[in-house]
């Protein structure tokens, strides 16, 4: 993992019990995770009374360094030994290394979930609704008497802001074809996961 000098300096400050006592260290660490993982988190995350005595510039630097490191570690799927090695290099004592690793472990799943959800992908189908109707006549054609389906696929785009819908009509044979093909896909999926 390649990390900048800025991050390293931040961590070296974090390692120093003179700048951050045990309590402050834990608080800052938690704040870093919170900023990343809590959708509602904002600048107030560093507004704890037990952090007030620390120079705000230092506070921001360490917070940023920690957050940067956490993201990089998450991205690379760093294991405990990788984390320990880097923290040792930054002069973290045993206790702080343990604290960091525990906190990381607790948040690992959420972190990986967050990172996995970033990125471009094709429009994603989230749901389907259908309507069955019996067609009787149009102004061009009377006495139709046939069933028809209207299928709507709910689709989400990666920016999560647009939710276009795809609607189409089909008769029974066509719907059977559609369902048949989707079933083939899901059977293939089952087989592939058993390999």
């Amino acid at each position, binding site marked *: 993992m390649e990390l900048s000098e800025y991050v390293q300096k931040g961590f070296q400050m974090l390692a120093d019990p003179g700048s951050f006592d045990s309590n402050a260290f834990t608080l800052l660490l938690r704040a870093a995770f919170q900023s990343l993982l809590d959708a509602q988190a904002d600048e107030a995350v560093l507004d704890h009374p037990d952090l007030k005595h620390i120079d705000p510039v230092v506070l921001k630097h360490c917070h940023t360094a920690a957050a940067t490191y956490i993201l990089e570690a998450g991205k690379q799927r760093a294991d405990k030994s990788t984390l320990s090695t880097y923290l040792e290099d930054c002069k973290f004592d045993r206790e702080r290394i343990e604290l960091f690793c525990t906190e990381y472990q607790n948040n690992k799943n959420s972190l990986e979930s967050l990172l996995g959800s*970033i*990125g471009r992908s*094709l429009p994603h189908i989230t749901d389907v609704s259908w309507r069955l109707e019996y067609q009787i006549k149009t102004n061009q054609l009377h006495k139709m008497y046939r*069933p028809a389906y209207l299928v709507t696929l709910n689709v989400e785009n990666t920016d999560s802001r647009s939710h276009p819908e*795809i609607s189409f009509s089909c008769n029974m044979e066509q*719907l059977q074809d559609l369902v048949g093909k989707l079933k083939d*896909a*899901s059977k293939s999926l089952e087989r*592939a996961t058993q390999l």
Partner: protein
Amino acid sequence: MLLDLSEEHKEHLAFLPRVDSTVVAEFGRIAVEFLRRGSNPKIYEGAARKLNVSSDTVQHGVEGLTYLLTESSKLMISELDFQDSVFVLGFSEELNKLLLQLYLDNRKEIRTILSELAPDLPSYHSLEWRLDVQLASRSLRQQIKPSVTIKLHLNQNGDHSTKVLQTDPATLLHLVQQLEQALEEMKTNHCRRVVRNIK
């Protein structure tokens, strides 16, 4: 139900008894071809020269015949009703039989063409699928994320469009389940009763 033929329409059709029955049959063929592909005025001119009449007359004759066939097909009138409707035109027995045959032979296809005129949503054509596994992205390495990529082919008013979409295994199963329920619905008592009774 009888067809309501206007005076103008009857005038146009009055051309038909003046020609040979083979010509009428040919007009019938042209009429259906025009419904399939759109009209071609050059055909009128060619026929007009051969029959020694104005091309307008030929055009009216063909159009009159077309309208007769499409209205009858649209309403799905019975053989008897068709015969009674045509009877008022005072044509020969032979011509009436010919017109009836034209109607019966082409009714199904004409109805298919007419159904394409209805307000239209894109309709399903076909579907292709592919299984993918995402292994890594810029923001996260060492992934195993299965997904299904789907290419949906749709038709609308003769235009073909495709939509490329993706879904996850859980949603795929959900889609199959929901749509199978949709298919099952047609077999329920309620739907069967409706189909039986609305005719």
